[in-house]
């Protein structure tokens, strides 16, 4: 028969320690199974997955309800005015893709897209570009004059071009063409064929977004900036690739001197933009970013902000960085876009597992959001989950 035989002294201590160690070894490797999503619930190549639809639903509500939107924007602007602006860009890109997925619902999506674009142009006209920039934009003069931020011009052009790619609205034709001309002229004037986002500070993220806007715009209005795009590619490959990793650096001076090395919150989106203009280079950049920044632990995926060869700070782009792991909220969020854009399904599912685990999803009648993030985070996620048709349309040669 069995009898209770409690351990005594050191044996008791050892038994407790062994039990705790074994329990840890049993539990930690399986935790992710409770959070691992079915990929089809989040991303479908030929439709809108249920989770993506819920996220879109909440965003549509935000833009259809001014009070809700004001509260959300105020919350983000308290931390970073850029997030307000980028949240608009990623939402427009997301909605444009959904509109292409679902032509029968196009009118509703285009109404919200137009509302976002009109409000953004109005705010820019009333308050100037500084409204969407961080305060240090006023710390010194832009090298190129008159002062313009490619962060603003590039993303506004991308919003306009995406909208026009879904369906032409004559009242956006001129603003888009003018914005593209301004961008190309500004970038061509720079020694590295790049333009500033902040005084003497160029960002690869913004330059890649601007060139993507040029490519999308060309596919809409039939102009051809191919020569400029090829020159830009040659310039960044020659000047702005980090020798250690082979990745494009994230920021540099107006004359093309690198400031920061490769950065997770930049490179995933840059690789996605490059898909439009140099798919092989884009795939190479994604593969390198995946190797240098993509991480996996116990079934959870995440991305580092900096590669091992570069010591960079925790800042507003990276978001808080988890000590030891080096996991960055900003890099991990944009890695979702990279993984989705390059069909890296395993990494995408691991990243989504982490999101379900530590993003604190909230689902109700209004849709889905992630409490640990904010509107720009949700908009990036939405775009990651629905992207595909817009880029595909640009890459597919017109039959005419």
């Amino acid at each position, binding site marked *: *028969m*069995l*009898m*209770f*035989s*409690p*351990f005594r002294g050191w044996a*008791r*201590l050892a*038994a*407790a320690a*062994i*039990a*705790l160690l*074994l*329990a*840890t070894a*049993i*539990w*930690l490797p399986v*935790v992710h199974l409770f959070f691992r999503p079915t990929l089809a619930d989040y991303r479908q190549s030929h439709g809108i997955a249920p989770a993506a639809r819920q996220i879109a639903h909440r965003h549509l509500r935000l833009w259809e309800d001014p009070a809700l939107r004001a509260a959300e924007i*105020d*919350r*983000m602007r*308290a*931390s970073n005015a850029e*997030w307000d602006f980028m949240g608009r860009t990623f939402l427009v890109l997301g909605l444009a893709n959904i509109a292409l997925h679902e032509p029968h619902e196009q009118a509703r999506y285009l109404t919200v897209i137009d509302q976002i674009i009109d409000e953004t142009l109005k705010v820019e006209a009333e308050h100037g570009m500084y409204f969407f920039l961080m305060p240090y934009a006023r710390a010194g003069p832009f090298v190129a004059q008159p002062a313009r931020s490619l962060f603003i011009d590039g993303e506004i052009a991308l919003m306009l071009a995406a909208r026009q790619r879904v369906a032409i609205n004559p009242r956006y034709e001129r603003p888009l063409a003018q914005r593209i001309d301004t961008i190309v002229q500004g970038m061509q004037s720079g020694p590295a064929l790049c333009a500033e986002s902040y005084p003497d500070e160029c960002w690869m993220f913004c330059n890649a977004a601007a060139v993507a806007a040029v490519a999308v715009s060309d596919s809409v209005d039939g102009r051809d900036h191919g020569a400029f795009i090829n020159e830009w590619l040659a310039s960044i490959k020659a000047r702005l690739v980090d020798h250690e990793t082979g990745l494009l650096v994230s920021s540099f001076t107006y004359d093309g001197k690198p400031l920061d090395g490769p950065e997770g919150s930049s490179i995933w989106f840059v690789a996605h933009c490059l898909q439009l203009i140099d798919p092989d280079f884009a795939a190479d950049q994604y593969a390198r970013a995946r190797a240098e920044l993509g991480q996996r632990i116990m079934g959870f995926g995440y991305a580092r902000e900096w590669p091992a060869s570069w010591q960079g700070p925790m800042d*507003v782009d990276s*978001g*808080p960085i988890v000590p030891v792991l080096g996991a960055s*909220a900003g890099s991990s969020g944009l890695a979702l876009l990279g993984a989705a854009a390059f069909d890296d399904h395993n990494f995408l599912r691991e990243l989504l597992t982490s999101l379900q*685990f*530590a993003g*604190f999803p*909230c689902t109700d009648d209004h849709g889905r959001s992630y*409490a*640990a*993030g*904010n509107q720009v*985070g949700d908009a990036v996620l939405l775009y990651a989950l629905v992207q595909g048709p817009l880029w595909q349309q640009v890459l597919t040669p017109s039959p005419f």
Partner: protein
Amino acid sequence: MTKRIWSIARLFLWGGLLSAPPWVARAVLLLAIFALLHLLGWRADTAIISGTLPAPGVAGELAILRGLLYVLSYFAAVLVAPILLIAAVLLTLMQLGPRRI
């Protein structure tokens, strides 16, 4: 009164560290704390972990506190409590060594 509270707290923190029933009790307590904070709606204040700051002022500082407490209680409930429960089962099995009399 303070002494009594302190002795209870000390008992909870350090008492019976090497046996299964207190591990189960602690796990249940961690789960209960998380459930309470969840029901209070503190999940909505967790944006702080992505660097999104609430509005300045006392209300904002309280939101940060709520968010941090929620995050701590969540990870305690999801990571620590199950380990304590599994360990309690394992320790009980170890103590129930097959011994014939």
